């Protein structure tokens, strides 16, 4: 039996290869993502280890919030250095400084880092623990010199000896570039730009004067790090800790890995979608192959093969296909990982070279997933193969489509109901995996119920073609008369396009909502921020306030604190300017309370914590620990105000963050807007990292970002759509083989080759458009559900991107034409006599 199985497999190499391709693509995505994230993880581990090489113990302020590496620690006073040096076993102790510094290139633009931070640090070339390596020139000395990282120098075209402007926390300054530095073996720290100063200069300009961000301690030879840590702790004042170097490395790595984790999960979700679509393909292909092998299977049954032997033989075919596809996909994944890494490089994220990490789990995952998907998808066809009656070995015509549709209807209805239920629950609960599961189950339900609507819909779709001639009539007839086949072929396309349309609907609704949100919540004329919303200097606010026609300037600082029982992000802002730049509806209390050092919460934040105006709320800051604040006001939800507001004074007293997140400003009443705009532009002239937007520009910019994200997601979904189109080609090709005798008869009776090709093309287009329409319907419904669920997050408007959806249908029709090309050619080339005599 095994021999018969393998032989029949080899005979159908091409057809199985096409369906296996779907699995190859999906698996390559999975393995590529896993390889990339593993490699990057190792790279960062090595990088952070290099940075901290030589350091055994690090002294820093305690983070009262207790959350990972979120930095807002009390700076370490200089005096501690002497005390530490006196501890036995300390070979060296150096102060470290870290803060904000951004280089302005010769073109006048701030050097972009694509989202990575712009760091200002000290450089101590004599220290054994110094991670920066001077590549050319010298380390900076004194007030007027800096060294910059090689990556930034390359990007901006800066050389040793050039004069550059550096944006700082305070006023920007000019420096001479004394040297170019690297980080370990790389040009920069994973895309972050580094500007290094002489230590006392760094303390003053970038850190807090008289303090260090941390003190790095190297141990004498033979001294145990843990022991040294204990000794040092003994001499430290309260509020500071001595931490082992490997803990620092672990914390830094963990933060990076969390980010990588999100990235990897997102990619894996897309891989899963492709695999899901691929499973449909496998199911289809095997179903058709089983149907075509009815006689052969019946013969085996007649000769005494048991049902189990027949099922097993089909599953073994699936196993072999899955295995080959998994291995190929895994190998391809290596290429995918390299490609993704190159992509990151193009985006400016320079990663140190390291060997590609292929973890065992990647290999196992690829194999298990590939084989699993193929076998599960082939399960139903395999069972169906076993139900072939031995007597069919003697029958002439193919199996009739008389299997009961009723059972299918019940199953489909149940699946759809279950899927919608899980989806609704997942959306209300906010559990993403449930949403995904519900969506997939719903898709399965719709695909199962599809034959019921296939006949009338394809009939309608094909009507215009039928009008055009006999080829059109026949093509439409083919699509209409086998609703099961049509549905199965269209199912994969339906899923891919459902997701694309859901995302489009979500994106369009998001864009429309932004307009509503801005209208509703923002009162300011202008919003100022950096391109990536990274922190910038307060000098910008000062410069704005100096302008005559600018009325209110609200400078928002972003921070985190534990308010009551929950941690949340908060903002510090000038209370007087606040109400002029935001449209805030006070629900309880009075926002002026902010000026008295009190707290303001959004309605949701207050409700979820069960707080009322007048109550004293314990607010835990990472630097100052628990501080009691009175709740002075509760305001209605406002996307710009966020959940928690405090005055700038309270904020500054409890955090060391002196940089701003965003500025909102209003011009004085009665002044011509163009003039106000001029003033604003003049004020920010010295800050090339700042972008000024009025309300309309802000909306447009947000819209552009949403579009970017939308397009990126759509591109990733295109993979699934490509697989779906492959499915259509496959099915058409198989159906041509199945209908060989019928096609031969048509040719014998006088149908031209050209007409035969057109017939197949019509069939293909009808099926593709049917799939697209179904996908659009399901996707729009899904998108609507998502919009409803996200209402609390600010997506209040539902918008239907009609143009984009129409485009999807058109593209599907074109895909149908393309998909038909090969099968149509094959059909037209049939030799008439051979075809008529075929089995």
């Amino acid at each position, binding site marked *: 039996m095994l021999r*018969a199985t393998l032989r029949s497999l080899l005979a159908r190499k091409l057809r199985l290869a096409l369906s296996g391709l779907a699995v190859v693509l999906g698996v390559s995505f999975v393995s590529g993502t896993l390889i990339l994230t593993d490699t990057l993880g190792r790279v960062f581990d090595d990088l952070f280890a290099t940075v901290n090489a030589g350091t055994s113990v690090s002294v820093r302020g305690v983070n009262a919030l207790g959350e990972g590496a979120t930095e807002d620690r009390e700076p370490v006073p200089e005096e501690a250095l002497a005390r530490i040096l006196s501890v036995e076993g300390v070979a060296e102790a150096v102060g470290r400084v870290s803060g904000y510094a951004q280089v302005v290139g010769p073109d006048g633009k701030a050097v972009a880092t694509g989202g990575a931070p712009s760091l200002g640090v000290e450089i101590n070339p004599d220290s054994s623990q110094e991670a920066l390596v001077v590549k050319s020139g010298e380390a900076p000395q004194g007030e007027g010199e800096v060294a910059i990282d090689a990556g930034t120098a390359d990007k901006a075209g800066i050389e040793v000896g050039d004069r550059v402007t550096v944006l700082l926390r305070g006023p920007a300054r000019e420096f001479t570039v004394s040297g170019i530095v690297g980080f370990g073996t790389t040009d920069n720290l994973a895309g972050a730009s580094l500007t290094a100063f002489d230590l006392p200069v760094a303390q003053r300009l970038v850190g807090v004067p008289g303090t260090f961000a941390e003190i790095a301690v190297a141990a004498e030879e033979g001294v145990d790090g843990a022991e040294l840590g204990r000794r040092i702790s003994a001499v430290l004042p309260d509020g500071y800790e001595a931490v082992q170097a490997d803990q620092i490395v672990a914390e830094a790595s963990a933060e990076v890995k969390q980010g990588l984790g999100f990235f990897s999960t997102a990619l894996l979700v897309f891989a899963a979608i492709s695999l899901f679509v691929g499973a449909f393909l496998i199911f289809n292909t095997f179903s058709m192959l089983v149907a075509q092998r009815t006689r052969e299977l019946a013969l085996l049954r007649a000769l*005494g*093969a048991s049902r189990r032997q027949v099922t097993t033989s089909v599953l073994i075919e699936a196993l072999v296909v899955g295995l080959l596809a998994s291995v190929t996909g895994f190998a391809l994944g290596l290429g995918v990982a390299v490609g993704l890494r190159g992509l990151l490089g193009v985006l400016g994220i320079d990663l140190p070279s390291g060997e590609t990490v292929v973890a065992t789990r990647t290999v196992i995952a690829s194999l298990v997933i590939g084989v699993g998907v193929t076998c599960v998808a082939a399960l139903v066809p395999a069972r169906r193969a076993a139900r072939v009656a031995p007597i069919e070995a*003697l029958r002439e015509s193919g199996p009739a489509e008389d299997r009961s549709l009723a059972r299918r209807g019940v199953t489909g209805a149940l699946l759809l109901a279950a899927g919608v239920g899980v989806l609704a629950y997942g959306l209300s609960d906010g559990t993403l995996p449930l949403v995904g599961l519900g969506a997939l189950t719903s898709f399965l339900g719709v695909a199962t119920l599809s034959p019921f609507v296939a006949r009338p819909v394809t009939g309608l779709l094909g009507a215009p073609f039928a009008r055009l001639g006999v080829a059109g009539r026949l093509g439409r007839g083919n699509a209409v008369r086998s609703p099961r086949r049509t549905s199965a072929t269209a199912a994969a396309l339906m899923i891919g396009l459902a997701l694309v349309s859901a995302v489009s609907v979500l994106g369009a609704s998001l864009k429309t909502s932004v307009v509503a949100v801005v209208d509703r919540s923002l009162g300011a004329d202008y919003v100022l921020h950096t391109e990536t919303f990274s922190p910038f200097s307060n000098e910008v606010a000062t410069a704005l306030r100096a302008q005559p026609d600018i009325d209110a300037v609200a400078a928002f600082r972003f921070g985190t604190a534990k308010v009551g029982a929950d941690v949340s992000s908060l903002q510090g802002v000038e209370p007087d300017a606040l109400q002029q730049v935001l449209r805030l509806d006070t629900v309880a209390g009075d926002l002026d309370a902010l000026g008295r050092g009190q707290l303001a919460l959004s309605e949701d934040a207050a409700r979820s914590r069960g707080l009322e105006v007048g109550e004293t709320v314990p607010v835990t800051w990472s630097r100052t620990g628990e501080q009691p604040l009175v709740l002075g006001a509760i305001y209605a939800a406002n996307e710009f105000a966020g959940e928690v507001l405090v005055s700038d004074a309270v904020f500054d007293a409890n955090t060391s963050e002196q940089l701003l997140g965003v500025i909102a400003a209003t011009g004085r009443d009665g002044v011509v807007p163009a003039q106000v705009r001029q003033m604003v532009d003049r004020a920010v002239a010295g800050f090339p990292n700042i972008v000024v937007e009025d309300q309309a520009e802000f909306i447009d910019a947000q819209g552009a970002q949403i579009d970017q994200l939308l397009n990126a997601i759509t591109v990733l979904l295109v993979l699934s759509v490509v697989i779906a189109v492959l499915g259509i080609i496959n099915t058409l090709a198989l159906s041509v083989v199945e209908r060989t005798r019928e096609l031969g008869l048509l040719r014998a009776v006088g149908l031209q080759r050209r007409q035969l090709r057109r017939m197949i093309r019509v069939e293909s287009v009808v099926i593709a458009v049917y799939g697209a329409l179904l996908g659009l319907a399901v996707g729009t419904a899904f998108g609507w559900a998502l919009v409803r669920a996200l209402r609390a997050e600010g997506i209040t408007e539902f918008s239907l991107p009609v143009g984009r959806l129409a485009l999807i249908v058109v593209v599907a029709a074109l895909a149908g034409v393309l998909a038909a090309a090969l099968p149509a050619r094959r059909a037209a080339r049939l030799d008439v006599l051979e075809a008529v005599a075929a089995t």
Partner: protein
Amino acid sequence: MSASAVRAVDVRKSYGKGSTAVTAVAGVTMEVTSGEFAAVMGPSGSGKSTLMHCLAGLDTVDSGEIWVGDTALAGLGDKKLTALRRDRVGFVFQQYNLLPTLTAKENILLPLDIAGTKPDELWFDEVVTAVGLADRLGHRPAELSGGQQQRVACARALVTRPAVVFADEPTGNLDSHSGAEVLSFLRRCSQEFGQTVVMVTHDPTAAAYSSRVVFLSDGLLVDEMAKPTAQAVLDRMKAFEPAAAPAPAPRTGA
């Protein structure tokens, strides 16, 4: 009654429901003794193929009993029926007998392969020599003529030494020469190897190779003829034609 290779007792079978119901076999009782080469004949629609399918365990009867050797087919589940087909029954169909992806040798050994038993080398050689295909064993069906394909099918039917070999119009697609080869082989099986063969045919020349012919008409066994000749069978068949003399009273076979 162990000398009986296959036996039918009052077998009835119809297809379809209600107004479209068609009675294929209307109550047939017959017996084929061990080693006999029996032919079942009748005009189209007489139910001969249906009867054979039921005898072979390929289809179920509505009522009546069927015995293959000492085993009653009624009440056998699918598994046991399948095992019966594998070990105790051989088939030669009119066409599509062979798996196109296997060689002649592999096709012949297929039932044994399915059962997982090792073939008896001597018996295999004997059968292959008997059908005259020793030099074609490595060829695929596409490389064999129609007659050669049928002979491969015969060899396969014999290789398990079944209780009975059923042949459904084995020469229907062959020219007279190839057909004659297949038929004489079947006769040799019966006469030399003691193999029971039941053949359904509409061709009087083919029927002449058998040792006994039973005639079916409208689902009923209407006549028998021992030691048939082609001419006698042809004459008898003419009697079935509508304008011919009325058929004699149906006799139940012994």
